[in-house]
């Protein structure tokens, strides 16, 4: 019977950009828009970074600096497991007395999974437990930085030119005969002409940039263009006859973990710092309110803001299904749970003919016509043995049982198809009290706010027909 509790059996329809059918446990509820939201129709944002192995939070500025990598933890370059620091004692001469030797601690990194150690790569043992390990630097860094500076200079020039052109276009009273060349000439040799006076009202930026270039001794950055080579190194002669030692050759996956170096030999695989993970916060696209905001602390699983649908919308669950036969009416027992603390009134409606949402149902359903009343969720109810019976008058044909904030009720299902799974759909209408933001200040002691009626489209998949 546990299969009936699987979340995929009961789907709620979300009206976003696309209509999606998702179990209620995977949905969020925006109480400002009063609508259901799924993961597809909210915007995701990065909230905080943390290391998955040492669970240390990292502020985003530092994460940017460290390129989203933890300072203390390393990944094994062979199997991507987390490396642990091991210590050995090595004899080392005392600083005062070179003849005597004493045991000193030396640390090295080792992988508990594939037995790789930092000594395989030739990394010397360090005398401090953490902070001594450095990643190798990319040899091309300097050249690339120089290239960037050079291009930035060209880009600045282009931007100035573009701004000047924009200026030229904005001032229609300037003679059209001014070509780009004359503007250059004028600028190069100083603006001692009428032009300067006319342009005095122009924004400062264009002129300022110019005077900065001439006044300040800004060196023209030139770079030597790359030299092309005539000859490329051929493969060494013994390449054709040398047997391949497969464990020595790195796999493609190992190589791509180090994009700067991509070494072919396993003896050059250096460990890298561990990549961080992040916590996400979700935001409704329409009203820009946060739907989910996790705690800052990586070890905490709680949320600062948690507007999940199961805590606002009544949840339908299937309790028991009898044998379903083609064109025969059967009773299915469903439960309805009220997540909020006040009394909720729920009414169910069948989908009308030609309902555009109703595309999957393969059976007719008859839902109770009377309104169902659900008691509020009382957190102390389980401890209260002397619970008074709730004074609800229930029709025994409709309501099977009632237990604190849950009721069980019957629906009648008539499968229309001879084969395949039976799917039914109906509309669930309930009242929702928005306690989020009172529009007008209410009187003292009055805590109720306006109740709005929300309608959701629910689909149940009841499984195959009984043979």
């Amino acid at each position: 019977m546990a299969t009936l509790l699987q979340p995929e059996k009961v789907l709620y329809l979300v009206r976003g950009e696309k209509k999606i059918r998702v179990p209620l446990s995977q949905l969020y509820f925006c109480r400002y828009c009063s609508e259901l939201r799924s993961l597809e129709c909210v915007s995701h944002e990065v909230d905080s970074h943390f290391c998955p192995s040492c669970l240390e939070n990292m502020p985003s500025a530092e994460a940017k600096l460290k390129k989203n990598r933890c300072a203390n933890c390393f990944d094994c370059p062979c199997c991507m497991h987390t490396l642990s620091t091991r210590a050995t004692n090595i004899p080392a001469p005392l600083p005062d007395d070179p003849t005597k030797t004493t045991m000193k601690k030396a640390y090295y990194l080792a992988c508990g999974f594939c037995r790789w150690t930092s000594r395989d790569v030739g990394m010397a043992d360090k005398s401090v437990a953490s902070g001594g390990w450095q990643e190798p630097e990319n040899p091309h860094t300097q050249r690339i930085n120089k290239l960037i500076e050079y291009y930035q200079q060209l880009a600045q020039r282009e931007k100035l030119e573009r701004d000047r052109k924009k200026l030229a276009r904005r001032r229609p009273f300037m003679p059209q005969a001014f070509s780009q060349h004359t503007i250059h000439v004028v600028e190069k040799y100083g603006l001692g002409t009428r032009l300067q006076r006319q342009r005095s009202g122009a924004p400062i930026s264009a002129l300022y940039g110019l005077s900065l270039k001439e006044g300040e001794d800004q060196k023209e950055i030139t770079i030597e263009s790359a030299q092309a080579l005539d000859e490329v190194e051929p493969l060494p002669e013994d390449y054709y006859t040398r047997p391949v030692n497969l464990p020595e050759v790195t796999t493609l996956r190992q190589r791509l973990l180090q994009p700067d170096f991509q070494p072919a030999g396993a003896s050059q695989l250096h460990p890298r710092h561990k990549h961080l993970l992040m916590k996400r916060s979700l935001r409704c696209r329409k009203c820009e309110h946060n739907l989910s905001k996790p705690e800052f602390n990586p070890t905490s699983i709680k949320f600062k803001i948690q507007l999940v649908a199961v805590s606002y919308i009544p949840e339908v669950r299937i309790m028991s299904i009898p044998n379903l036969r083609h064109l025969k009416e059967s009773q299915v027992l469903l439960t309805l749970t009220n997540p909020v603390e006040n009394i909720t009134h729920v009414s169910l409606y069948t989908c009308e003919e030609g309902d555009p949402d109703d595309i999957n149902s393969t059976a007719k359903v008859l839902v109770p016509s009377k309104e169902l009343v659900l008691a509020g969720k009382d957190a102390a109810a389980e401890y209260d043995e002397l619970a008074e019976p709730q004074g609800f008058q229930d029709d025994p044909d409709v309501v099977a049982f009632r237990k604190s904030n849950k009721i069980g009720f019957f629906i009648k299902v008539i499968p229309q198809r001879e084969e395949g799974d039976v799917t039914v759909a109906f509309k669930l209408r309930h009242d929702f009290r928005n306690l989020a933001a009172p529009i007008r200040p209410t009187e003292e002691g009055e805590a109720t706010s306006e109740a709005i009626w929300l309608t959701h489209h629910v689909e149940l998949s009841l499984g195959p027909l009984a043979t």
Partner: protein
Amino acid sequence: MVRALSGQTVVTAQLQYEVDSPAVCERVVRLMSGALALFLSCRGIKALALCLRQLELRSVLSIKMPLFEGLGSGGEKTAVVIDLGAAYTKCGFAGETGPRFIIPSEIKHAGSPEAVRVVQYNINTEELYSILKEFVHLLYFRHLLVNPRDRRVVIVESVLCPSHFRETLSRVFFKHFEVPSVLFAPNHLMSVMTLGIQSALVMDCGYTETLVLPIYEGIPILSAWEALPMGGKAIHKELHSLLSEQCTLDTDSGPGLSLPTVISAIPEDVVEDIKVRTCFVSDLQRGMKIQEAKFNLDGSAERPAPPPDVEYPLDGRKILHIKGSIRDSVAEMLFEQDNEEKSIATLLLDTLVKCPIDTRKVLSENLVIIGGTSMLPGFLHRLLSEIRSLVEKPKYRDALATKSFRIHSPPAKPNCTAWLGGAIFGALQDILGSRSVSRDYYNQTGRIPDWCCLSTPLPDSVYEAGKTPPPLMKRAFSTEK
């Protein structure tokens, strides 16, 4: 917290807000960009002040801060650079020396063992949209760990990318992730930017195909493009068929079993691993002999001695014996001339023939080879020798006067060179904005401007925010000293 130190022209502001709404954040930044400098503090490191005296934040940067090189100069954050290849995707940030991650361009779902390829051109829009959305979501939230809304995007891609794919990708970025702007950069042009030269003949040996495009003075000569579907995919297919025919397996049930009896097909990533670890490209003489022996027209050609066999473990319980002859012959298919006498080497020469005469010498002396397939051991040497020998053939001897060929070595591995070019371009914040397609423009027109489509309305700027960036080098200042 904004503090103005009187008596100095330096005004500092602390940028450590936790705003819960992007609108507030924008207002805050705009307030500060009036006449302020930025002061960033991080975990106890003392503040460093950038001194600005202008209205615009980005123009003058007199103090270099080596510590904060990852951050942009001024208020704008560094752009995200993505190179979406058919086999692998390189992603990272502008201004850095290498991509942060090189990941396979595929999505793994929980249920199915087969991964779904991201770069597919033949599926319908809805499916492509959801696949791309999921993939870009992974890129941002698992690998780059940044908010999509804050940063501009530079996408390095091939000029032959179908418009339908490009449109869907831009729809994913603009509609779902709401990025501020997107720039589509051709990968051949970007790789030239890593060298500091203006003209080059660029060959991209990738997964689906090999594409040659000449760049002269910063402008791609689009009419002279040449392509062949010879790439990683073709090599994998050939290698798989050779392995199935010729190689034997050792399993628990017994040694020497032929491959098809045990497993139906070797998965492609295993074939790729075999290619990367055991295969190589022989030099010209040896390669020619192998080709003659394969076609064996006279019946007399002898194959040179094959390299040693390799025992390759599969799944931990099987051992595949890879014949040595496979190791050096599978890469020959790149250089075998097919029925139209085309091979990878002839592509370069055909392109030269198509180019204007005065450009040929410059182009032939500036060859740039990028792409993952070109990282096979011995590839470059073989390519150069092939070109040099082909240029003596009657077909090219009279057509091409230039006989000297030189090859560049960019400051990055060949599979990351195009990405690096995109990162260098993305670091130029002054012009990145004007050349990209902004979100407003996209919302107005609903389309991405394309180099092959002339009916796109121009945005309200001097340069069209189109695909081929106008040359910003030579044309900038004709009066340079």
